[in-house]
């Protein structure tokens, strides 16, 4: 099937394509609810400021022992799930390359951007890094290299080179994430099925190249921006893969989880189960479950704040990834504000920028991203000068950056709820005709039907968003407090309350800005 078979004329409404007073925007949260949520955040901050509680690693509830055992005994369960995601992935690529150019009628764009990307972020809270276990990029690349469904690959399947020291960090993932956002919002990949398919193929090639050259799964650990986003957010997920009995791991000398066994791969991201203290690099691949001779690995249901507040170790590159995640998440919201387009057009007219206005967009993106970075850096400088002069500035910066995770995550979830609950209606129609054969652009009636009938009652969406943002800011304040205490050695130094106040002002400002963004009308993506 070729595209020329279909009676298609594309009419794209978003981005720089259609500049008209006729766009459709989702309504924002009501003013009253927004103000109430902001006041509740303020009240919560007072409670946390006055709190005397000290965070501890705590003990989570072990869950899913039977499932872990089943996955260890029958790796085919995971293989079947991977085959399923790969099959859907191939269908998405085929639909993008050969299907209709109408984004709202093509499976590539609707499944990738309206359903998968929005649902993925929400799912991270409940499933941690579960997606990585069935990731089609990794599955395809691994199968092609090893010619095996799940067993350990032969020595011929990869050059197994060590990743150069200068690349052993998450900077590559951060730059890739910035690039992907630029492609998504600036170039408009989300509204082009063809570009979506090309992007998917590029990711497979990158994964394959990395797996072929470097040892284990360097792409998953250092380069994959989706994986690192999941990793950072799963830091505040209540679900984590952990030892059932820490003592068993402490006594273990053979470390099968790290080295692997004859048939099972070693941990693809170089983790030792007995020493794991953060979710960031865990890809939930279940290799540790399969290789552990004591069947001592399962999931843990825990206090979602503990890892970011207590156990995770701060690193400079990871702190910048967290900051990047926050800025890019907020930037998504900014670009969907109705005036954004006229701002960029105004800038373009002033600069003499023409065509897709990519220079103007890039400047707008750089400015939008710089503001939170500068404000956070300023806060860090104030705190460092005020109370932590004896400490390394980078350590203070990295330690307190953990508190940004819940704020970014909460806004991301709240923003995605709008996409998912307001734009996913009618997905089954697209799934039934994934290539969009003989389809026409959305009619005004369809657009209004979608506008009027979200998957959840409108008020329920607003309340959910408010609860999510309040919880995020509350968790952020608590994490800030614990991390500040850890920097002062658990001692309430004289200026501790000053440090708390700086944190409260900054985090409340971020929370209020998130609420303000949610209160604005948001342009419908497709």
């Amino acid at each position, binding site marked *: *099937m*070729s*595209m*020329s*078979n279909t*009676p*298609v*004329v*594309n*009419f*794209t409404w978003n981005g720089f*394509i*259609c*500049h*008209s*007073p*006729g766009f459709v925007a989702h309504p924002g949260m009501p003013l009253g609810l927004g103000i109430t949520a902001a006041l509740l955040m303020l009240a919560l901050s007072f409670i946390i400021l006055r709190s005397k509680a000290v965070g501890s690693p705590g003990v989570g509830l072990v869950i899913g022992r039977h499932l872990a055992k089943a996955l260890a005994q029958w790796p085919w369960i995971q293989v079947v799930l991977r085959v399923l995601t790969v099959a859907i992935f*191939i269908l998405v690529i*085929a639909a993008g*390359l*050969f299907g209709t*150019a109408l984004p709202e009628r093509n499976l590539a764009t609707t499944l990738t951007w309206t359903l998968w990307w929005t649902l993925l972020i929400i799912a991270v809270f409940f499933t941690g890094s579960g997606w990585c276990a069935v990731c089609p990029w990794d599955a395809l690349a691994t*199968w*092609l*290299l090893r*010619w*095996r*469904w799940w067993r350990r690959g032969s*020595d*011929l*399947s*990869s*050059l197994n080179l060590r990743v150069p020291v200068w690349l052993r960090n998450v900077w590559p993932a951060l730059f890739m994430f910035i690039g992907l956002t630029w492609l998504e919002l600036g*170039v408009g990949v989300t509204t082009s099925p*063809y570009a979506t398919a*090309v992007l998917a*193929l590029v990711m*497979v*090639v990158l994964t*394959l*190249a990395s797996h*072929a*050259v470097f040892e284990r799964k360097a792409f998953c650990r250092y380069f994959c921006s989706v994986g690192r986003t999941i990793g950072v957010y799963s830091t505040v997920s209540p679900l984590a893969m952990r030892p059932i009995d820490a003592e068993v791991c402490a006594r273990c000398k053979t470390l099968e989880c790290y080295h692997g066994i004859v048939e099972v791969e070693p941990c693809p991201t170089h983790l030792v189960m007995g020493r794991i203290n953060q979710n960031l690099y865990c890809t939930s691949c279940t290799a540790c479950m399969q290789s552990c001779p004591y069947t001592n690995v399962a999931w843990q249901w825990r206090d979602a704040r503990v890892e970011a507040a207590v156990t995770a170790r701060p690193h400079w590159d990871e702190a910048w990834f967290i900051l990047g995640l926050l800025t890019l998440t907020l930037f998504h919201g900014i670009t969907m504000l109705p005036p954004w387009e006229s701002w960029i057009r105004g800038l373009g007219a002033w600069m003499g920028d*023409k*065509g*897709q206005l*990519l220079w103007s967009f890039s400047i707008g993106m750089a400015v939008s991203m710089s503001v939170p970075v500068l404000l956070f850096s300023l806060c860090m400088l104030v705190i460092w000068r005020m109370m932590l002069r004896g400490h390394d500035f980078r350590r203070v910066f990295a330690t307190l950056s953990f508190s940004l995770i819940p704020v970014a995550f909460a806004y991301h979830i709240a923003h995605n709820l709008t996409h998912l609950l307001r734009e996913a209606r009618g997905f089954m129609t697209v799934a039934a005709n994934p290539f969009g054969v003989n389809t*026409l*652009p959305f009619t*005004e009636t369809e657009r209004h039907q979608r506008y009027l009938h979200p998957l959840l009652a409108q008020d329920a969406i607003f309340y959910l968003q408010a609860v999510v943002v309040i919880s995020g800011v509350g968790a952020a304040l608590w994490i800030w407090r614990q991390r500040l205490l850890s920097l002062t050695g658990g001692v309430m130094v004289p200026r501790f309350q000053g440090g708390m106040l700086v944190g409260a002002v900054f985090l409340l400002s971020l929370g209020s800005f998130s609420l303000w963004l949610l209160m604005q009308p948001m342009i419908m993506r497709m």
Partner: protein
Amino acid sequence: MSRLSSLFVTVLLSTLCNPVSAHHVLGRPAYSLSEDSNTPPSMQVETQIGKYSVTIVAFPAFPKPNEPGRVNLYATRIDSGALFNGQVTFRVRDDRLFADAPELLGMQTIDDGVYRQGFVFSQRGDYIVSAEFTAEGEPYLIDFPLRIGDPAPVTLIGGVITLMGLILVLVNVTQRRRMQRMRAQRHHTPDSDEHE
């Protein structure tokens, strides 16, 4: 693994095959239709934008390089059905990353209720045609994509598959050589020890 390889070959073959396109409407090839035909052309979009209902029709349905074509634009007020009577500017740009600035196709006034803009594209590709007009002080800009000639996704798929194949072969050959070298070194070491 043989199933995986069969699946891989099937996907490869299916993506490399470019099916025959036959555009028949009521027994006649669609690409021979013109605006004078009694059969409606297939390239048409109707939309409401601001206070106007706009219809854009492109002829022929599937334009080819170096073949003359035309875009017709009809704009009527939603509330009264009155025709928009002014000037419409048509521009075109490549529908690709880092596209050049749009080129002016022409500025048209109304002719029998229609704004007609002719075009001839010399190269195959995807283009965005923009129609701009100003009504009651408010600017209107409508973009729609136009594909000239057939798309060539096979090139992309072929390129990706070739690239992936190349990576796999290179890795395999390099690893085989490395292992042979290591085996040879291992073989060689006891001999040299004996000489010593």
